[in-house]
């Protein structure tokens, strides 16, 4: 059983890391990162079967995670560092010259924990499917996870991949959509309505779960664990996870305006005051 109180403490530290990273270089994407904090903490500190200190690209016998919406790299880097993939101090190099923590995640600099470059949207589901197929070929019973933005679902490749995953029974795979309803130019409703994602994925042949509380760590754990029980039955599993962009920092919450904008000094102080330092700032 997960120690929920401890996970909540990790969440506030991850949120501190996010706002500190983007503040330091006055660039990056805090909104989506903050909204996905509970998901990453649940995954990296409880759900994943993984070996952070003994990382290798192939990850045989380990669960694999792929971030498709690479712009939320701050939360990804914090989760990786805080769970032991690399030294938390390295977060100070985020988006700087000669850093392994590129603006969008890459494999190019050999950062432990990252298995594919992402940033150009819509590609991660295909990659996750490929990794899941190889797991099956290698008779490796581990699970493949991926995370996608809701705006990202406007990319056509997602639906090629969605059709393939169901049609070819990729049932060792759990995808999650960060359903925050926001994208750069406004709400998804304004930019391009997504319609019923549940109906769409079900029509494609997926098992679909709806978690309407993606910023409640207990609910995130509950849905990830529920998704695991649905594996091995001939269907890929999708969790539509409602989150709030900017969650945990009151003035950033619920608005697309903090998609790709860093806080100033005063705003940083306010954000940090709302999130307790629990694991020591880097």
């Amino acid at each position, binding site marked *: 059983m997960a120690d929920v109180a401890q996970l909540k403490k990790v969440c506030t530290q991850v949120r501190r890391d996010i706002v500190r990273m983007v503040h330091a270089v006055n660039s990056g994407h805090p909104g989506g990162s903050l909204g996905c904090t509970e998901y990453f903490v649940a995954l990296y500190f409880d759900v994943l079967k993984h070996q952070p200190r003994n990382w290798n*690209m*192939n*990850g*045989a016998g380990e669960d*694999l995670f*792929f971030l498709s919406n690479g712009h939320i790299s701050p939360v990804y880097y914090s989760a990786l560092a805080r769970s032991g993939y690399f030294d938390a101090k390295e977060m100070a190099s985020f988006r700087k010259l000669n850093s392994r923590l590129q603006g969008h995640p*890459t*494999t*190019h600099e050999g950062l432990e924990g990252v*298995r*594919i*470059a*992402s*940033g*150009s949207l*819509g*590609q*991660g*589901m*295909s*990659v*996750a*499917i*490929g*990794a*899941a*197929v*190889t*797991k099956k*070929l*290698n008779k*490796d019973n581990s699970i493949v996870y991926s995370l996608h933005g809701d705006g990202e679902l406007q990319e*056509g*490749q997602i639906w*090629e*991949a969605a*059709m*393939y995953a169901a*049609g*070819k029974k990729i049932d060792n795979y759990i995808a999650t959509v960060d359903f925050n309803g926001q994208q750069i130019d406004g709400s998804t409703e304004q930019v391009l309505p997504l319609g019923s994602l549940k109906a769409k994925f079900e029509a494609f042949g997926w098992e679909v779960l709806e978690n309407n509380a993606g910023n409640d760590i207990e609910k995130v754990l509950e849905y990830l664990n529920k998704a695991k029980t649905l594996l091995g039955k001939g269907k890929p599993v999708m969790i539509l996870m409602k989150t709030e962009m900017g969650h945990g920092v009151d003035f950033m919450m619920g608005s697309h305006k903090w998609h790709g904008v860093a806080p100033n000094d005063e705003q940083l102080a306010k954000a940090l005051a709302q999130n307790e330092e629990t694991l020591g700032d880097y």
Partner: protein
Amino acid sequence: METKTMKKYTYTEKKDTRSGFGAGLSELGKKNENVVALCADLTGSLKMDAFQKEHPDRFFQIGIAEANMMGIAAGMTIGGKIPFTGTFANFSTGRVYDQIRQSIAYSGKNVKICASHAGLTLGEDGATHQILEDLGLMKMLPHMVVINPCDFNQTKAATIAIADHHGPVYLRFGRPNVPNFTPADQQFEIGKGILLYEGTDVTIVATGHLTWKAIEAAEALAEKGIRAEVINIHTIKPLDNELILKSVKKTGCIVSAEEHQMNGGLGDSVAQLLSRHYPTPQEFVAVNDSFGESGTPDELMKKYGLDTPNIIEAAVKVMGRKK
């Protein structure tokens, strides 16, 4: 005089390079169990049926979804597989450029992008399918290896050889039957050109289907007393700089020949090499900023200036430009 001393290249049959790929893939499947094949609904056209029959568990029919195919291939490398993707050259490159760029090239994934029906010799289907820009698109990607073999045997050998190279490779081949003159036991070495004729008057570097035409051109030039050095460049990237430079230092002029746009192709790479290291007059046998059209392969190669007489003409012209 010259023709008597010249080695004569011969062939017993004409075969398509795509069948060389199919044969190579089938052989590779037997000796390397990590090799997997993916196809976007063109299994017969790519001659992947043998592999599919022999290794149904390692063959993945993706459907008409090339972007997804490239992503799946990238993902399959994680865990040690060596994916070979198969579709037409047009759908292997331009259609999926960003997928290749981010998920394969930048991510350093060990994917072999195998592309058939490249160039004008696709024929009657017309310009929508006759990609003439693929070599350029692929060679611009950092660390991408780009190979365009010339006949059945070379394509087969290249297919087998690229499995031993760790990293992304673009392998381009075609549809028409062309003379199969490469010895079946010739080793394929990535990045090493093949000296077909030694000569002193002009260098001809040719890739893919233009290689046999370069041989024909050299034979015709020999009858005029012109000794052409003919080099088959099967690997556009990395280019065999050493062999090309050594040759032009001897001949003082060069013709490049390829079934591709002049912009971005083999000739472009050769010109860059020469301008940096040994400025040399060069003529280009290539498509000059144009799309193709419907027609038979032979008609198209004539109309767009990619035939044997065009190489001969270019050789004579470039010799006249020597200082």
